[in-house]
């Protein structure tokens, strides 16, 4: 580890020794600045709650869904309860009437098939009307009497009628088929009703929670003693239901039995369809709360289309700031719930709650989708900023690199064009001055002098042959007076040639000409003039 650390340090030291290009360095500064600003913005946005908006939004949507669902469900169950209370009242009156007509007490109807058949014939239209008018899929009446008390299971066997819709495919079927689930089969034949595939003559009340207790309690008003059972499986069928139990109380307080309505899991599924929301599939649940769990196996679940929610599960409730988490063990759901008092009985202390929930996975996927958009937008912004920084740094460095290039090619003259950056110009001037001094120290001519010499030498091509001969005599050290003899020409001709030579070589006098010749000689460039 220590060795590795040393290696990294050595690498860092080496990198520091390496010179970095100005553009890259500038780019690095830009990128650092962009990242700092970018992170700060993201940080400030997250502090301001820009990224937790979805949770709040979900909370608001959930609240609204819950309120609507709760209102609908409470109305629905109130309607069924009212119809069932009315059924109880009418049944009580009819039974009393029939018993008085027959001149028997209620206890005497046990083991009397004819009387029970007669009572069922009287009760059938009332039960059927309740089924047809209440928003339910079944209606029933159970009398606290049995057709055969001698049977071994007579204690749990009770006579009554249970009518159910079969072949349901929606919550409000136009022409539903009524099947005869429980009751004396003669009535099914009379009314041309199909016997349920699992028809039984009597009810097994051990299958109906609290039914026995209700029948044997002393009760006054049915309206103060009704309750919804937890969901029970209808024996030997694929269906399960919740039953509303309302006592049938006679005028003297005798409980004749119970009656009420049925809501099956399938009917509830049709009545409370899944709602497709941007957060996921919103599912409605009505279930008892036990030990901080929503027990779906004892309640009803609306359509679960688009989710894996199983109606047999128990959901552990974890309260949250915006919404609750419901954990099945296999999957998590998020949502809200509210306690709804659908029962009103001292016998039953079940705490019922209505909940709406969406799969956490689909909410997470939705959030991920939003985040993905954020990430894409941020990445695009980052790319643009990086490209911008690249462009700016290159533009900033270009005059410097170009100047440098010119330095390298020794093109930087004192009168060179300005780079546009004062510091660069100053640097160039400074470097020029230093180079000039260096050259002078090494015996080089200042560049303008050299130019003058070059121009002077270049002009020699303007001279004629005669003028060039006369110039050569001067170079050789002859005076003007020597020229007529040497060149076999007159003095006036010499003077004329002299004027031309001065003019063409750009000098004003013989002294200036001789100064050039002397200087060229000193510079060792005199042969270029010849």
């Amino acid at each position: 580890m220590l060795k590795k650390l040393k290696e990294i340090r050595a690498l860092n030291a080496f990198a520091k020794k390496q010179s970095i290009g100005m553009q890259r360095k500038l780019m690095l500064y830009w990128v650092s600045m962009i990242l700092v600003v970018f992170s700060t913005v993201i940080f400030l946005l997250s502090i301001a709650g820009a990224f937790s908006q979805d949770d709040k939004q979900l909370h608001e949507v959930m609240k609204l869904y819950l309120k609507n669902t709760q209102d609908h469900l409470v109305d629905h169950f109130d309607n069924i309860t009212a119809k069932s209370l009315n059924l109880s009242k009418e049944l009580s009156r009819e039974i009393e009437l029939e018993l008085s007509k027959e001149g028997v007490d209620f206890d005497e109807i046990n083991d009397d098939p004819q009387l029970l058949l007669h009572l069922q014939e009287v009760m059938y239209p009332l039960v059927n009307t309740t089924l047809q008018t209440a928003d339910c899929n079944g209606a029933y009446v159970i009398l606290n009497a049995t057709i055969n008390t001698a049977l071994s299971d007579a204690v749990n066997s009770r006579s009554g009628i249970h009518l159910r819709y079969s072949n349901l495919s929606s919550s409000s079927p136009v022409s539903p088929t009524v099947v005869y689930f429980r009751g004396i089969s003669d009535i099914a034949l009379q009314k041309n009703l199909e016997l349920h595939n699992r028809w039984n003559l009597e009810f097994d009340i051990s299958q109906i929670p609290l039914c026995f207790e209700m029948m044997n309690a002393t009760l006054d008003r049915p309206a103060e003693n009704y309750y919804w059972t937890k969901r029970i499986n209808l024996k030997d069928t694929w269906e399960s239901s919740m039953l509303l139990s309302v006592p049938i109380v006679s005028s003297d307080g005798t409980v004749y039995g119970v009656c009420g309505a049925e809501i099956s899991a399938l009917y509830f599924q049709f009545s409370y369809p899944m709602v497709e929301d941007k957060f996921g599939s919103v599912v409605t649940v009505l279930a008892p709360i036990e030990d901080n769990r929503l027990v779906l196996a004892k309640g009803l679940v609306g359509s679960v289309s688009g989710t894996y929610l199983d109606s047999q599960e128990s959901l552990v409730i974890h309260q949250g700031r915006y919404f609750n988490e419901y954990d099945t063990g296999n999957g998590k759901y998020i949502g809200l719930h509210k306690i709804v008092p659908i029962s009103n009985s001292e016998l039953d202390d079940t705490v019922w709650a209505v909940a709406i929930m969406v799969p956490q996975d689909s909410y997470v996927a939705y959030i991920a989708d939003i985040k993905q958009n954020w990430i894409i937008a941020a990445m695009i912004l980052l790319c643009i900023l990086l490209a911008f920084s690249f462009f700016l740094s290159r533009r900033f460095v270009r005059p410097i690199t170009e100047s440098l290039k010119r330095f390298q090619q020794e093109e930087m003259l004192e009168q060179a064009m300005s780079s546009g950056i004062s510091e660069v110009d100053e640097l160039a001037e400074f470097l020029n001055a230093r180079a000039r001094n260096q050259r002078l120290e090494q015996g080089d001519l200042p560049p303008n002098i050299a130019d003058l010499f070059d121009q002077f030498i270049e002009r020699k091509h303007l001279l004629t042959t005669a003028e060039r001969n006369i110039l050569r005599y001067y170079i050789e050290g002859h005076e003007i007076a020597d020229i007529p003899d040497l060149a076999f020409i007159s003095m006036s001709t010499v003077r004329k040639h002299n004027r031309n030579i001065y003019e063409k070589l750009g000098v004003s006098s013989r002294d200036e000409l001789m100064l050039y010749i002397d200087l060229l000689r000193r510079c060792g460039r005199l042969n270029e003039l010849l």
Partner: protein
Amino acid sequence: MKYRKIIILLIFMVLVCSGCYDTIKNEETPTTITIWHVYGGQTDSPLNDLIEQFNQTVGKDKGINVQVTSVSNTNTIHELVLAAANKEPGASELPDLFTSYPKTVLALQDDDILVDFKDYFSEEELADFIPTFIEEGMIDERLLILPIAKSTEIMFINKTIFDRFAQDTGVSIDDLNTWEGLFKTAEIYAEWTDGQTPDIPEDAKAMFVHDYYFNYFQVGARSLHEDFFDDDKIIFDTAFKQAWDPLAQAALKGGVWLKGGYATESIRTAGSIVSVASSASILYYSDFVTYPDNTSEEITIISRPCPIFENGEKMVMQRGAGICMVKSTPEREEAASIFLKWLTEPQQNVEFVTQGGYMPVTRTAFEDELPKAIEALDSEKYASLYQAYLDTQKNYEFYVPPQIDTYLSLETTFENNIRSQLSSGRRDYLDADQTNLEQISSERFQMLQQIMER
């Protein structure tokens, strides 16, 4: 140049990230497909259990959730499908899959709402299906009905009560092998039951109940080498009369159950003790009967091949609806076809059919899986059924009803009228102090003919 590479790399990363997120999102939401089926009626449905198994295994892997939104019977589904397809007020939304006989598809105004299974099943996959089953689902050269289970008509006998009756009267269970013998036995049963309560006159009990008397006459006529249909009319000829006579005689004497409902209902209350019904009705037969005083008696139900006419061919009705798929989105159709492929895989198919009294639909299932499944059956009721099934398979010719648009209405009209005519005949016979049997039978025959020829 380097920077350009970095930028391209960043863009690429962004695209890859977005792709990943999309995949994650799709995996979270299952494709839910709905089904209306008939397997199980109101009892524990074997198909529902299998669907649950599918949802927990293959469905979970592939993001498919199959939901049963109705377990019903084919006639109800027929009505619901037609109402939904015609967009009648109050009609339910069509599910992705529904159980159907060809009569439902033929009655659809536009069968283009259904998927041709050839689009989702390869030729190789379809080649393993039993060809006659596939042919039954072919409508206008399109495979609109996929067979998933097939049944036939079987005779079910409440052996417990029949044995008591046989002991007292000397009849034999073999008397039930022919229709003539069966109805004669029914007459004896009516006398026997009437005689058991001398203080209550005319309380003869029915011995026999048929789910569909329409099928009895239809298969009967064909087995006697005559046609039953003339286009969409019934032919009331010699064969029909030959089938009518023994039935009417037994019915007038009270030996035949003529009230509505399925055959299983009267067996449940000992209202009758012998039935001819779909093999799939095995699910609905209880192991006990309930009497009016709420006492119940444990019974043994045995199965025998369907009776035949003495001079007729061994012929029996092939039953068992198939599955239709409603056109929706490619994802839903694909999901539904994955489920159907899973359900018709030999192992699942045999598991499903043997719980429901059906036969599998592929050769592999028939040859490799079914014998093992039959051997493993621990219920005597089911073992007896499959023995009767194998006998039928071996010795009988299967009759497939013709594809007539008005088949269902014809069947319903006939079924209601024959029951009402025979019930009226029974009353006439009792009113005439149990005389004029042949005359009453003949009158009722003519009445039925007149009604059906209207």
